[in-house]
């Protein structure tokens, strides 16, 4: 029987590369979606249909239309990434899949990223469809600075994923996730431009609530898409980036807090007894 014995450090096999490992975990999550059409409908199709319905009345109205798409994206982000990913982390933990993964090659961060990858890709796909729908069907202007929008989507997803990991620790099942993610979803969405209206809150309250994650997230989408600020002043490319920096900074701060919380509370295996 031929048996290769490795003595030195691990060979540079592709299975030891984090990107390859994340792809393997993505494949696992996509297989789960393929086998479970109820879950797929709940997490992929239904939110997208609702998002399209909620934006459908804004044909040909650039500013209100883009604001509405940003709001709907914030809702998608919280429900699809934050809520759904919390249930995914909890389910993989209860199934002991996370523990089993930890006995293998992928590092802890790779396992968390790989498990999130299916959900995050789903969200990015939904956002893309929504933008295409807005531009092609609703006749909204094409995004001026899509890179800023992509940064918003990726950073927003990362923030949501970090809090999902932290909250999965107190979530025993997908039913329980309804309860455990309710407070965080309210906090995330109670921002001007998300579920609170722009330009109508008392200015002081507006300034404070803007710091909730969906405030900078939706502002980045609006600035990136329209190429002008909320007062309507046109921004050059450089000025757009400059205007985006505070929002990016706030999201990064939320991300750092979320990662610290995940590091502190995330559980790899079910609590005994």
């Amino acid at each position: 029987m031929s048996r290769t014995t490795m003595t030195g450090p691990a060979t540079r096999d592709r299975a030891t590369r984090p990107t390859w490992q994340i792809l393997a975990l993505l494949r696992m999550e996509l297989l789960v979606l393929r086998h479970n059409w109820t879950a797929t409908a709940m997490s992929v199709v239904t939110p997208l249909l609702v998002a399209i319905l909620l934006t459908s009345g804004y044909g040909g109205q650039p500013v209100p239309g883009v604001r509405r798409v940003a709001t709907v994206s914030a809702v998608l982000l919280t429900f699809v990434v934050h809520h759904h990913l919390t249930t995914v982390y909890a389910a993989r933990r209860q199934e002991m899949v996370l523990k089993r993964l930890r006995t293998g090659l992928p590092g802890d961060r790779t396992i968390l990223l790989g498990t999130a990858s299916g959900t995050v890709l789903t969200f990015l796909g939904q956002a893309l469809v929504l933008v295409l729908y807005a531009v092609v069907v609703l006749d909204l202007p094409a995004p001026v600075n899509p890179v800023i929008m992509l940064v918003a989507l990726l950073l927003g997803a990362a923030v949501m994923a970090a809090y999902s990991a932290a909250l999965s620790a107190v979530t025993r099942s997908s039913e329980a996730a309804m309860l455990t993610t309710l407070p965080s979803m309210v906090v995330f969405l109670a921002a001007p431009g998300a579920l609170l209206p722009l330009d109508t809150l008392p200015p002081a309250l507006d300034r404070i609530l803007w710091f909730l994650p969906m405030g900078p997230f939706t502002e980045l989408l609006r600035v990136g898409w329209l190429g002008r600020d909320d007062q309507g002043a046109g921004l050059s490319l450089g000025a757009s980036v400059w205007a985006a920096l505070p929002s990016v900074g706030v999201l990064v701060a939320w991300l750092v807090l979320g990662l610290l919380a995940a590091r502190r509370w995330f559980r790899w295996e079910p609590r005994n007894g």
Partner: protein
Amino acid sequence: MDDVVIDVAGLRHSYGKFEAVRGVSLRIHRGELFALLGTNGAGKTTTIEVLEGLQAATAGRVRVLGLDPVRDRTTLRPRTGVMLQHGGFTGSLTVRETVEVWRRLTVAPRPAREVLALVDLADRAAVAVDQLSGGEGRRLELALAVLGRPEVLFLDEPTTGMDPASRRRTWDIVRELQRAGTTVLLTTHYLEEAEVLADRVAVLRGGHVVATGTPADVVAALPARITFRLPADPALPDLPHATRSVRGDRVDYQTRDLQDDLTRLLSWAADRQVRLAGLSARPATLEDVFLDLAADQQPRVPQQERETTR
């Protein structure tokens, strides 16, 4: 330089205030099949999980293939295989899909068909893993553990929940792997499993190793047993190498010299014309070791002069 594959010295591990492992030392050599025996809560799983690198030791030194399982995780993982005590599958995936996902996460994996044939699951490849029986699920776990032809294989209660046929098949597989040079550390509370498979065993109790050696050595360290039903004449003889205890109507002598004490007992019975109903005399078994060492409150106290009538 040496062939010590697993080297553990003074291992301690605590969960909060509870210390599950309290100073375990083991040296396991290349190609050896070593069994950790103990009841639930004895510290077996904690010990093996520290060796697997899932938990860091609270104190003590742990080396697997000369590497630290936590610090040298990336170097060590391609060379070890792990079968956890409780499974780890996503229920809706099929057996084949599960193996294929894991093959992508393994360096130089065996072909899916080969491992599935190895664990007798070839005809179950298209079945969803949550449709597998308990024993089949365990065999799939074993298949994933050996996917990368590991040098060191950790098996945490590999045959728990298996029917006898599955259990024998698993033993055969483990023996084949050992013959191919794999070092195996397994935990079990099946004594037969340890006796059939293991080159050496360590018995754990309350986080301590209370006995270690070959199954024969561990058994030899314990007294043999003579038992019979309590006769009408209650004046039982004292045997020079034995301690006596009476439980209900059973008399139980634990003896260091079975032949000598048995001869004396039989001649005592012949002299008095006592009928020893249900007489049995046998050397210690691993089960005795297990019950004595695993359940005894004071396992290290010599049992030489202990006369108990409980």
